[in-house]
């Protein structure tokens, strides 16, 4: 049984793996051969020549430096690939994942929701923005050679581009309690046309639209709308901007900042505003926070998608 290579990075990862494997096999065979030859030739009772031991600085330095430079070579190769694995392409389409004991909940920007399944288009980069509602989980798709832990209280991300249509195993790889081994699912990679059909068939209210509703229902608009009499930050064009904080530092308004500002508003207070916002911790779930964040990202003066500027 061979693992499929179903993402753009999979062949590169396997190439590094195979090279390192060959190198290690060479070392193992070499050392074992030498050991066996010595053990046979110098076994007790043979009349092999046995001159007294000497120390050889040159030999020591050789087998110190040769492995060192080999290791550095492997390290360099690996880092090159690692940076690629960790840097999502600019045009990657975001999909939101919320993990909880013991299921994967997925929301697409168009509002499509799935549980323990993730539909993605072949040939287009997908960026998963993930958080957990309880303990640490880990999103692992062996066929794509990708894995990323999913933490409560922060967003982590993972990207891939599927290259072959098919259905692939999704595992939780970080022990998360009783039914850890049942926290499995499928990632279904579809040709773009099929994917578009799938999206259409499962259309719901868009995530940003859900967020806009929540923005009113939860009372956010009462303070943050321009008409409001409360002195609260204006949230237009906030996403991606650098925000000066009350403690003198600065922070980039990314997904994590927006998330924390909703759940832990006292953590990073914007400069010039009193810390009067109530926390929504425990009042709304991670999925609602994701919808709010999606809405805030679209709340721009210009009509363009702020994702383009990232």
């Amino acid at each position, binding site marked *: 049984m061979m693992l499929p290579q179903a993402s753009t990075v999979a062949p590169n990862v396997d190439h590094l793996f195979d090279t390192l494997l060959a190198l290690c096999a060479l070392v193992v065979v070499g050392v074992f051969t030498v050991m066996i030859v010595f053990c046979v030739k*110098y076994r007790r009772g043979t009349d092999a020549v046995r001159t007294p*031991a000497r*120390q050889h600085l040159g030999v020591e330095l050789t*087998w*110190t430096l040769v492995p060192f430079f080999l290791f550095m070579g492997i390290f360099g190769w690996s880092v090159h690939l690692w940076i690629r694995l960790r840097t999502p392409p600019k045009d990657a389409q975001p999909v939101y994942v919320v993990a909880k004991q013991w299921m994967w909940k997925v929301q697409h920007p168009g509002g499509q929701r799935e549980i323990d399944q993730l539909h993605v288009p072949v040939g287009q980069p997908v960026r998963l923005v993930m958080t957990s509602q309880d303990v640490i989980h880990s999103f692992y798709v062996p066929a794509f050679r*990708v894995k990323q832990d999913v933490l409560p209280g*922060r967003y982590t991300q993972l990207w891939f581009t599927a290259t072959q249509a098919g259905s692939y195993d999704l595992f939780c790889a970080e*022990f998360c309690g009783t039914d850890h081994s049942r926290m499995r699912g499928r990632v279904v990679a579809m040709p773009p046309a099929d994917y578009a059909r799938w999206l259409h068939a499962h259309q719901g209210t868009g995530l940003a639209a859900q967020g806009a509703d929540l923005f009113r229902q939860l009372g956010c608009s009462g303070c943050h709308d321009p008409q409001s009499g409360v002195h609260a930050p204006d949230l237009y064009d906030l996403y991606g901007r650098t925000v000066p904080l009350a403690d003198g530092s600065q922070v980039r308004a990314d997904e994590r900042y927006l998330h924390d500002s909703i759940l832990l508003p006292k953590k990073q207070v914007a400069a010039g505003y009193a810390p009067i916002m109530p926390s929504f911790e425990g009042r709304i779930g991670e999925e609602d926070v994701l919808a709010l964040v999606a809405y805030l990202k679209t709340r721009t003066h210009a009509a363009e998608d702020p994702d383009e500027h990232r």
Partner: protein
Amino acid sequence: MSTVEPRLPRSYLEEGFGLRSWLLTHDHKRIGVLYGIGITFFFFLGGLAAALIRWELVTPAGDLMSAETYNKAFTFHGVVMVWFFLIPSIPATLGNFLLPLMIGARDVAFPRLNLFSWYLYMAGGLFTLACLVLGGVDTGWTFYTPFSTMFSNTHVILVAVGVFVVGFSSIFTGLNFIVTVHTMRAPGMTWMRLPLFVWSMYAVALVMILATPVLAMTLALIALERLFGVGIFDPALGGDPLLFQHFFWFYSHPAVYIMILPAMGVVSELITAGARRRIFGYRFMVYAIIGIAVVGFLVWGHHMFVAGQSMYASIVFSILSFIIAVPSAIKVFNWTATLYKGDIGFDAPMLYALGFVGLFMLGGLTGLFLAATALDVSLTDTYFVVAHFHYIMVGGAVMAYLGGIHFWWPKITGRLYSEAWARFAAILMFFGFNLTFFPQYILGWEGMPRRYHEYLPQFQVWNVLSSAGATILGVAYLLPFGYLAWSLRHGARAGPNPWDATGLEWRTGSPPPLHNFDRPPEVDEGPYAYRR
């Protein structure tokens, strides 16, 4: 070496026969034996849990036990094997017994503290055992937060208290060894004449006293969060779950070297005695031990490449992890070169030592895959990692421990065991081990996550092979019990130096007298002064 058999008074075993004479002893040799009994007990309990895990995994469905029980079984296995077997194994038994003998001292520097550390070990061990058996814990030995602090309904705090207590026995042993090596070496025993086993004990003692307190603090913080709701690790309380992983691995990665450095020390003694040859590159071996102990403190983040730590932090931890592989490579090459022009006999201790070198090499090389960030993304938290650390911990540390027990058994007990049985057990263990753990590398590469109670049917073939290997391995571990116990009554008298080995411990009686030497020995040559 001298073949003069000194006329010695009573051996340490004849100094008293009652239970009292053992439980109140200050003799480092008796304390070593007490530790030996304790860790053997825990080894078989931990092994039993491993057997349950492997039997459950014969079939993909979770049919032998419930998920809850399975999770408790692997937690039990991990906690017991790491803290109550591997960490104390070589230092507390062989180290306690041999360190003073090897440097020509009468005892360790603080004999009462030594006995106290054994009591701490047993108290912490039995307490933890009670908690694990009566209630159980399902967090894994790593206690990752916030699962362990806010979500697990099991007895996390009680087990943490047990581990906390046992940590102090490590610290006291480390303290004792450091002071002993500094102040109690025999005349002429300079630092560069110390046997490598003593060097490894010294290095490991340093790691113990520097790393273990961090574990104690971390466990205390878990208790603080769990009992009083102080937000340290749980983000819902304003904490940071990654902080726990940093703390935990800051201890637990050096802890890996607490387990493997002593094994390297033992194997250096076994190979030189088996090949009757000086160690190749003594100085480089010493530098490698120190290098591993120091750099071992700087690589903890390689457990967290996909945990959410910054991409750049991971790059730094990756290069340091490659660098720490260099001294390990040096050691393997030097052991191999020691065989060159040797006079090699294949007694059981040598078989264990050669088995160690092979398995340690496979374990070490697969560590390179995990140090390479881009490969670790796929491999971490799969069976590849399980196989890797079992090659180091079981293939490495346990093989070396058993090799050491076989090598010094005549010194400890004064008796010889059945060589044929011992060789058979060593070879059976080597095959059983490889059959158990090699398939797990393949499982990991194919994507089977670790700590899975149920798994997908495509993984079954390798799991069945692994479980079959575990059964053979289990039998191989039981064999020494039989023939070593037999030797206590029926084994031939060993004489002071049955292996014709160098080293001060072989210049006194087997078993040695209470104060080890008649007169303080004088040292006028380096270690491993074999004729060749």
